[in-house]
């Protein structure tokens, strides 16, 4: 009894902290349903009538610029690069854990070290190469870059999952005369599936969020959603509701995926160190 009473204030603090952290997000969503004039009042008008005009503006009612091409570009670059990352990372992780090559930990650290080099320092050669080979403003080229950006993370994550496959089970499978395919399907896959889910989630989020490469390498044709969002701010007139609607729509896939897979999020963010 005493212990339960003593803990009660912590719950109140936790709720307050949760509300405080979520407040900007909730405010963003609320503002996106307000009219521009209600969005720009001081003090804020909490109970202003709700309207969809911000979303109508975002979907091109006023300016005529449709958000669909950038959204589709973002989706194809994110999904495309996630698929390629998995195709490359899973075999690599296999060669770093289940049947490890010599000096596998050096290779693993090489992958991680590429994440520590500042992306911006390699951007100019990439830009010049794209310009030279006509790949500027090309969504496939951006997909390749996102693949390289996420591949080290994916190799680390997948390796940490595949390392969980018990050696005894691999040996038992070999003794029973199971071929490579059977071993992969029966022994490796059950352990690898949660890892593949965590890897996909994290790779998707990072690609969807990326701004620097997209800004430098794309224009009208291959522009992604984050680039589109930056072009949405105008110097004249009120735009808060519009920007909030845009930010909400563009964040929606990440919010949905992240909330739905909270445990995968932790595994992914910690490169598989936390399961």
């Amino acid at each position, binding site marked *: 009894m005493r212990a339960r009473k003593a803990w009660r204030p912590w719950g109140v603090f936790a709720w307050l902290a949760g509300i405080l952290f979520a407040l900007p997000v909730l405010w963003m969503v609320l503002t996106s349903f307000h009219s521009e004039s209600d969005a720009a009042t001081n003090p804020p008008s909490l109970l202003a009538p709700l309207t969809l005009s911000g979303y109508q503006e975002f979907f091109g009612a006023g300016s005529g610029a449709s958000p669909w091409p950038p959204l589709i570009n973002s989706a194809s670059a994110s999904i495309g690069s996630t698929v390629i990352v998995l195709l490359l990372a899973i075999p690599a992780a296999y060669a770093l854990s289940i049947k490890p090559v010599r000096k596998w930990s050096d290779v693993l650290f090489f992958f991680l070290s590429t994440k520590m080099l500042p992306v911006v320092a390699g951007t100019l050669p990439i*830009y010049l190469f794209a310009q030279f080979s006509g790949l500027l403003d090309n969504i496939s080229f951006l997909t390749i870059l996102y693949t390289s950006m996420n*591949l080290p993370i994916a190799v680390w994550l997948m390796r*940490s999952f595949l390392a969980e496959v018990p050696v005894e089970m691999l040996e038992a499978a070999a003794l029973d005369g199971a071929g490579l395919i059977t071993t992969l399907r029966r022994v490796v896959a059950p352990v690898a599936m949660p890892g593949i889910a965590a890897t996909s989630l994290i790779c998707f989020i990072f690609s969807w969020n990326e701004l620097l490469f997209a800004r430098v390498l794309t224009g009208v044709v291959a522009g992604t959603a984050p680039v589109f969002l930056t072009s949405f701010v105008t110097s004249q007139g009120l735009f808060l509701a519009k920007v909030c609607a845009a930010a909400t729509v563009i964040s929606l896939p990440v919010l949905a995926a992240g909330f739905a897979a909270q445990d995968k999020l932790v595994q992914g963010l910690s490169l598989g160190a936390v399961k």
Partner: protein
Amino acid sequence: MTAQTLERPVAGVVRGGPKRAAEWARRAPLLPALVFTIIITQLPFVVTLIISFLRWNALDPTNRGFAGLGNYTAVATDSALRSSVVSTVILTVSVVVVSLLLGLGLALLLDQKFRGRGFVRTMLIAPFLVVPVAAALLWKHVLYNPEYGLLNGALSWIWGLFGGANPPQPDWISTMPKIAVEAALVWQWTPFMMLILLAGLQSRPGDAIEAARMDGATPWQVFRYLTLPHLRQYLELGGLLGSIYIVQNFDAVFTITSGGLGTANLPYTIYQTFFQAHDYGQASAAGVIVVIASIIIATFALRVVSSLLRNEVKR
């Protein structure tokens, strides 16, 4: 990460020709990823290194040639670049430290039992799941705006509540530009730290803590001598990963202040030298210096990770 895999036998006892074949069979699945990574992530740095010795400004295409160390001396004497080094260090350290501390506090709160814990956890994760550039726009226009932003709106509302006539209406971004950028980043990264530390807290050996309580240890003693040592590697992991991402931050600086008011960090400054000043040689020299600095920091950081790899972190 298991200690067991570290001892897993490497390459069986095969002799002569078959041995080489077997080794290549082991390497084969690794090669596509390795070659891909080397081509896309390492080759550009080699090119950057070469360009850094060239006199090359895209706005002056005829005047191109070997510059020797000219770009490096230019970079070393460039005050904008030096100030961006300082900004990068301040930004990274302050955001990582503050979000780690807040994340620790929140993780400790979430580790308690209370009603609606799952919901509170979901609310706390929300900031991390807003697209970074959207979050930066949100802070800049919806929260910080001096005329109708939420912060000043809340101030006038509170003042109005107590009948105050002139509520303070600071222009947040121009009076405290660095804090404005840092606050937005701390808001986004605290959930990240909290998630990693919460996983660490939940992997504590419950029996040791129970035993310590039975022996009359105070909650502070339990925290100081049991929880904190256990959390150490999770704190290191969070700090390391947070630094990797925040040192490269571009979105927040680009959006909130456009690098103005002393907030320009290295990624932003190099981006500007490339794409606005078009001085390819000088920007590349700056890039090379940043890469060398990163390698020094990374060697140190990798040692931390490698100790993590050996002491298994697992729930």
